[in-house]
């Protein structure tokens, strides 16, 4: 059957995706698909110990392997000053270990061979003399005065503390707690999880000795930033480095950092003058590339007896693993945007303090489908809200309704220093409750309890903070967090848009074309979007923290408007009218009051190359670098219904209702898809996923049999999505980022539902993941009979 061709989609349409044509045919081009003439393959030798001194490495047997071309160790890199690299959090990370290994799976040696299998074989031939050292796995132990100092490579480091940080008004918050009728306090752990995109991380480096140019194909969510960092790390001139981020098989934050494998392939290609590929295995992905979360938190709320919040207080111990490779939008934010924790509630006082520590675990933590720790913050707040509701004997919905920031107070100035962008939180909650039919659910729960079934209803309401970010507040490794778009119209009225953000499945080739289409009155089919090649796109900071639409999407709108300004001059020339007499109407310029004196964009574009006004340059193009004035604040209200099997402890998510407000939707179909995917990941976090270690620091979840992610069987049959649309006051299109709201809002809704189900038995909190064995234990401890 022939492909259906469609014409004329624009902003706001459910346009089928442009990128699908190649993916459904198996014609996507991912990093591992690349085959270059003469390309070599590689493998990384990793530490079996979580903490050990390296007394020596013998690579001679590996070098004798007939198919091995090179073996690189930390010593070799040290000679070039490349044994350590900077992290985006301003720390250093070992590329290949020299002095010690600090987590199990750490990179020790890099083997280059003719094929993948030989490279793996040669790993067995390398002898490393390790002297095991005491290990820190449990985060609080990092603070023990007698704990071993993990980062003894850093002269100034005498303990395992990375930072101490606080934010908010401590005194006012203490006063609120003194004066409150009711206070609650809940300890909780947001466990270490992994983004686990279906494509692992990898790179191909091709150094051309003839031109001196290094081309790096990398699984990168931020190709431009990676190029700059690559230039700094390797000392190559930046214009001699070309980073190409081809099709990316999911990122979710996993593909933001620079990993040792990327540096090693580049070094190997420089040394050998041939292309070299490195592709990590799933075990390597789960063991060594960035984890997320690992937050040990205490949340407290002070309130009046009728449930008005007076103050919120948080204490956090944050585990960053062996190197601080935390994704943070600037050194003033060692906790990312955790300071959003009072969230959508009108809290008159709030205060957070935190300590970040090293441990003998993989470095991180990255923002897994998260805008820099907002996920942890919202989970903490939503869990503590339910604890407060329990303390007050109040319906959690009523408690939330009472404390949500009223729409009249928007744009709201939060006590933590954020300016919100116009959300109507009550409307979202009302809509979620309407879809859920909350009164009927409560009735159903009453009946279920009478029948001895364990059913729970969980609610979470939240605001996110996404779109980093305004240069007055944010940077990454010193780079301002603008994003960019370059638009060129061709004589035939077609356009090319080049952007600095990077899709990993979000569908930018479609949505960004829709933005231009909406602004210029041409079909989105006529706009081709380029991204992911630093030689051919304007500088941008990439895609993470839901920043594509808030920052890159705004740049696309702004550049389209710049092009329209020039188009107006050309239209005036063509219509022999004064510019001031023209108006923009339905995708063309017309003389005010005489709609038949009109020029469409396609005609104007043609004239830009064939009939330009006397005082105008030819061509029709522009570039925009957009500095967002403020963050955007997508928000939502979620309801989760669960039932627990008394015998097995299995939690079944019966229903999940998600009402999201991401402002104006560019492509509602894509928005829904993003929400579905994020909800599945949130449910995975709540019920299944955790990275664990034994006391020796052995990683216990290095494959998909031990690290369980949701399959088609663990997710509810229907994601009951709904929407409210309140345009963002901080964005030229009224849009907010959306893809992370579902992972931010859903874990708390699930846990709240499970705790609600168990509340008749006196349960107030259970830490994630709520696996059958954990819930089974809670049931038995609380005297629930299995049958």
């Amino acid at each position, binding site marked *: 059957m022939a492909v259906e061709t469609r014409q004329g989609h624009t902003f706001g349409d459910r346009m089928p995706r442009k990128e699908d044509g190649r993916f*459904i045919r*198996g014609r996507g081009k991912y990093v591992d698909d690349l085959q270059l003439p003469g390309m070599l393959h590689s493998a990384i030798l990793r530490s079996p110990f979580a903490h050990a001194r390296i007394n020596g490495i013998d690579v001679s047997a590996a070098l004798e392997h007939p198919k091995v071309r090179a073996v690189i160790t930390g010593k070799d890199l040290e000679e070039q000053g490349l044994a350590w690299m900077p992290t985006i959090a301003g720390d250093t990370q070992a590329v290949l270990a020299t002095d010690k290994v600090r987590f199990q799976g750490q990179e020790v040696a890099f083997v280059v061979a003719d094929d993948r299998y030989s490279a793996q074989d040669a790993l067995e031939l390398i002898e490393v003399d390790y002297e095991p050292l005491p290990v820190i796995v449990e985060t609080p132990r990092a603070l023990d005065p007698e704990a071993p100092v993990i980062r003894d490579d850093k002269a100034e480091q005498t303990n395992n503390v990375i930072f101490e940080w606080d934010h908010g008004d401590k005194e006012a918050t203490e006063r609120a707690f003194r004066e409150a009728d009711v206070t609650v306090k809940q300890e909780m752990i947001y466990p270490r999880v992994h983004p686990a995109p279906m494509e692992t991380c990898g790179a191909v480096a091709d150094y051309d000795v003839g031109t001196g140019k290094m081309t790096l194909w990398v699984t990168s969510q931020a190709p431009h930033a990676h190029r700059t960092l690559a230039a700094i790390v390797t000392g190559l001139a930046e214009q001699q480095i070309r980073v190409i981020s081809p099709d990316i098989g999911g990122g979710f934050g996993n593909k933001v950092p620079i990993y040792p494998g990327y540096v090693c392939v580049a070094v190997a290609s420089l040394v050998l003058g041939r292309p070299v590929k490195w592709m990590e295995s799933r075990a390597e992905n789960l063991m060594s590339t960035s984890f997320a979360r690992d937050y040990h938190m205490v949340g407290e709320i002070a309130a009046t007896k009728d449930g008005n919040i007076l103050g919120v207080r948080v204490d956090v111990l944050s585990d960053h693993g062996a190197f601080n490779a935390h994704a943070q939008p600037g050194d003033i934010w060692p906790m990312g945007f955790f300071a959003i924790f009072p969230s959508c509630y009108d809290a008159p006082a709030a205060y957070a303090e935190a300590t970040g520590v090293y441990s003998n675990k993989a470095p991180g933590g990255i923002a897994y489908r998260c805008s820099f720790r907002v996920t942890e913050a919202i989970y903490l707040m939503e869990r503590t809200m339910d604890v407060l509701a329990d303390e007050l004997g109040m319906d959690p919905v009523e408690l939330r309704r009472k404390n949500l920031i009223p729409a009249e107070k928007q744009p709201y100035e939060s006590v933590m220093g954020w300016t919100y962008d116009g959300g109507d939180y009550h409307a979202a909650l009302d809509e979620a409750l309407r879809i859920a039919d909350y009164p009927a659910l409560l009735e159903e729960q009453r009946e279920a309890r009478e029948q001895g079934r364990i059913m729970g209803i969980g609610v979470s309401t939240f605001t996110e903070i996404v779109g980093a970010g305004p240069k007055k507040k944010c940077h990454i490794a010193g780079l301002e967090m603008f994003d960019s778009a370059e638009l060129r119209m061709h004589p035939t009225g077609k356009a090319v848009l080049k952007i600095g953000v990077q899709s990993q499945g979000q569908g930018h080739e479609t949505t960004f074309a829709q933005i231009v289409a909406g602004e210029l009155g041409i079909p989105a089919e006529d706009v081709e979007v380029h991204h992911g090649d630093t030689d051919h796109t304007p500088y941008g900071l990439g895609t993470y923290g839901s920043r594509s639409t808030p920052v890159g999407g705004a740049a696309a709108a702004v550049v389209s408007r710049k092009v329209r300004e020039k188009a107006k001059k050309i239209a005036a020339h063509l219509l022999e009218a004064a510019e001031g007499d023209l108006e923009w109407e339905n995708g063309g310029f017309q003389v005010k009051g005489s709609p038949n004196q009109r020029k469409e964009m396609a005609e104007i574009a043609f004239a830009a190359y064939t009939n330009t006004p006397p005082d105008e340059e030819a061509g029709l193009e522009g570039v925009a670098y957009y500095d967002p004035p403020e963050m955007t604040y997508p928000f939502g209200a979620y309801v989760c219904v669960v039932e627990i099997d008394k015998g097995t402890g299995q939690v079944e998510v019966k229903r999940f209702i998600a009402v999201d407000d991401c402002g104006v939707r560019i492509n509602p179909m894509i928005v829904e898809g993003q929400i579905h995917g994020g909800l599945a990941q949130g449910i995975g976090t709540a019920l299944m996923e955790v990275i664990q270690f034994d006391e020796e620091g052995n990683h216990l979840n290095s494959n998909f*049999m031990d690290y369980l992610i949701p399959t088609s069987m663990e997710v509810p049959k229907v994601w009951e999505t709904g929407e409210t649309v309140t345009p963002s006051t901080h964005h030229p299109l009224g849009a907010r980022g959306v893809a992370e709201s579902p992972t931010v809002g859903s874990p708390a809704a699930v846990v709240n539902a499970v705790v609600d189900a168990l509340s008749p038995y006196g349960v107030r909190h259970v830490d994630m993941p709520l696996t059958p064995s954990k819930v089974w234990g809670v049931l038995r401890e609380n005297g629930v009979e299995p049958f």
Partner: protein
Amino acid sequence: MRIQVNVNGEPREADVEPRLLLVHFVRDTLGLTGTHWGCDTSNCGACTVHLDGEPVKSCTVLAVRANGHDVTTIEGVSSGADLSLLQQGFREEHGLQCGFCTPGMIMTATALLERTPRPSEDEIREAISGNLCRCTGYQYIIKSIEWAAKHNAPTRVEVMP
């Protein structure tokens, strides 16, 4: 070892190591990179191809095992500008985002519809439960497969409940 495999209807010959996995034979030796690789433990299904018409995880099959047999990969389910009904279904119903799991999903679903032209939702969920997708939350994948099933026999009159 010399093997001959009938891949997407064409005989392909190569000298391979006995330990070479079918997924690497297809991807690296033949350059058919639509079949993906996503795990070490036969859990993800990104590598699903058909061996004599049956879906198999090609990371779990040695290339030599395919000697003298028929292998179909995603590149073989349609040709040129044409699309199979399932490929169309995935596009119509937004059954993919990053596209990495998509070829495997389509191969699994193709085998399902060959066996069960009108699968129930539960049958679809069960059939794809060995194919992981981290992006979509599965609902639109199910709808994509239902779309293809619905268009499978356009002459048949559907009685909808």
